[in-house]
């Protein structure tokens, strides 16, 4: 399937605080924009893959969205792997098309935790609330602490990631947070859940994004102007909650990436630019290690010296990622991967021909990988 399927169009809403819209309206706007970007009519779409909104669950949400777009898709519904859902749905779309189940698919995501409820992120973890164990952030803090204890990773090294990504976002006109960051400012950033500083943590944003998936052949027939090839994809589900994970500093991201690299016939050294899920800086550090850009435990040294900033060896999150562009779980990274391959990013990596994108959900509980390229 390498290179046989493409992302034909991308679309999104504004990011930030969008009161009074609701996720259905946000999704429809993103789908409308993705169709316009692909230059195709809604009538050719016969599959709709939707991420369940994290901020508010409702039954058969995929059908609610289909109705709002007057569609009766052959394949349609929601999938729930948290932030890993997006790339997983793109891969399911490719497989469904390949199996003759549908022809043109939209993959869509909307969420409104900024004006809706943040309950999903701040919740207590069952009876452990009696010990004061609350929030998603705490799980990442536990993982980060272990990484520091096991490998001697330093706060400044997590800061390298935050500084690079925030500075990329600062130049993106669509970014919700356009405030550049220095390493000194990062180090002064207050602890929320030590060792997590405020600037290690992503934004909470309302917004939606959608992409259109079809075969390269179909894209040619429909006159799609800037299709971007999907070279590989993979998944890996760590599944265990952080406290039960056999090794806190390793996840199934490794398996997800191996599957995707194998399909693409590429290795980490062949990647020109990366969009790495950055809900927390520790997630980026561990993903870079699990993907094989460096060895386990060496991520701290590896990111030093601006290696992950534009101009470095492996620029990451060139539109600002979750730390700066929007806290939306994952599809913004796919869209930026598409822009890099089209050559239209605001922080375009010169001559980039391959891009790896990671999506993950929960506390590195789920993972999916996408490789785009020429």
């Amino acid at each position, binding site marked *: 399937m390498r290179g046989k399927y493409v992302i034909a169009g991308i679309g999104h809403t504004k990011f930030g605080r969008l009161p009074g819209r609701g996720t259905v309206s946000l999704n429809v706007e993103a789908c409308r924009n993705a169709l316009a970007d692909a230059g195709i009519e809604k009538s050719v779409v016969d599959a709709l893959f939707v991420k369940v909104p994290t901020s508010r669950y409702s039954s058969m949400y995929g059908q609610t969205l289909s109705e709002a777009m007057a569609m009766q898709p052959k394949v349609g519904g929601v999938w729930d792997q948290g932030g890993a859902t997006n790339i997983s749905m793109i891969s399911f779309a490719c497989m469904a098309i390949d199996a003759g189940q549908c022809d043109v698919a939209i993959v869509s995501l909307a969420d409104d935790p900024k004006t809706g409820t943040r309950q999903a992120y*701040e919740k*207590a*973890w*069952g*009876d*452990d*609330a*009696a*010990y*004061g*164990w*609350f*929030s998603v952030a*705490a799980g990442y*803090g*536990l*993982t980060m*602490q*272990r990484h520091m*204890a*096991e490998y001697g990773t330093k706060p400044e090294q997590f800061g390298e990631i935050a500084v690079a990504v925030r500075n990329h976002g600062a130049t993106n006109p669509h970014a919700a947070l356009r405030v550049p960051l220095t390493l000194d400012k990062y180090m002064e950033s*207050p*602890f*929320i*859940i*030590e*060792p*997590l500083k405020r600037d290690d943590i992503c934004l909470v944003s309302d917004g939606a994004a959608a992409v259109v998936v079809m075969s390269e052949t179909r894209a040619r027939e429909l006159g799609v102007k800037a299709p971007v090839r999907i070279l590989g994809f993979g998944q890996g589900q760590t599944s265990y909650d*952080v*406290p*039960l994970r056999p090794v*806190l500093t390793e996840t199934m991201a490794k398996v997800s990436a191996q599957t995707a690299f194998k399909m693409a016939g590429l290795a980490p050294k062949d990647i020109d630019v990366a969009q790495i899920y950055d809900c927390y800086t520790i997630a980026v550090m561990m993903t870079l290690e699990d993907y094989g850009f460096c060895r386990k435990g060496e991520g701290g040294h590896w990111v030093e010296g601006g290696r992950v900033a534009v101009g470095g060896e492996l620029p990451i999150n060139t539109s600002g990622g979750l730390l700066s562009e929007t806290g939306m779980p994952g599809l913004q990274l796919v869209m930026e991967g598409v822009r890099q391959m089209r050559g239209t990013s605001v922080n375009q990596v010169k001559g980039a021909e391959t891009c790896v994108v990671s999506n993950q959900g929960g506390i590195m509980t789920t993972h999916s990988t996408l490789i785009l390229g020429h």
Partner: protein
Amino acid sequence: MSFPLPEPTPLSQPYWDSLKQGRLTFQRCRKCNNAWLPPRAECPECLAAEWDWTAASGKGRVVSWVIYHHAYHEAFKERLPYNVALVELDEGPRLITNIVNPEMGIAAERPVILKIEDEHGVALARFALI
């Protein structure tokens, strides 16, 4: 102000009752000898439904920990900053807990010993660095 106390289920009730009596227990599978927490109805390794509550030695080690500087629940505001740690028992199961003597310096792999404490009338399994 309400404190977020455990809400025992028929499955977890014996765990909380034992703590009240001064014993930390975990589940051990009769078929494959696997040991686990938190409570669940089937052994996650061999999926058998036959298991027993077993008393822990109370000895373990710190796997990791965090220090809250922000309270996500009103009841914890006055305790800031407070620690939450992940402890692995010598018998294998892990649990979320608090270290009662953090001034000794919490560190990964440091040995700990069970110190059951009362929290709003409920016995919690906390640990002390040794």
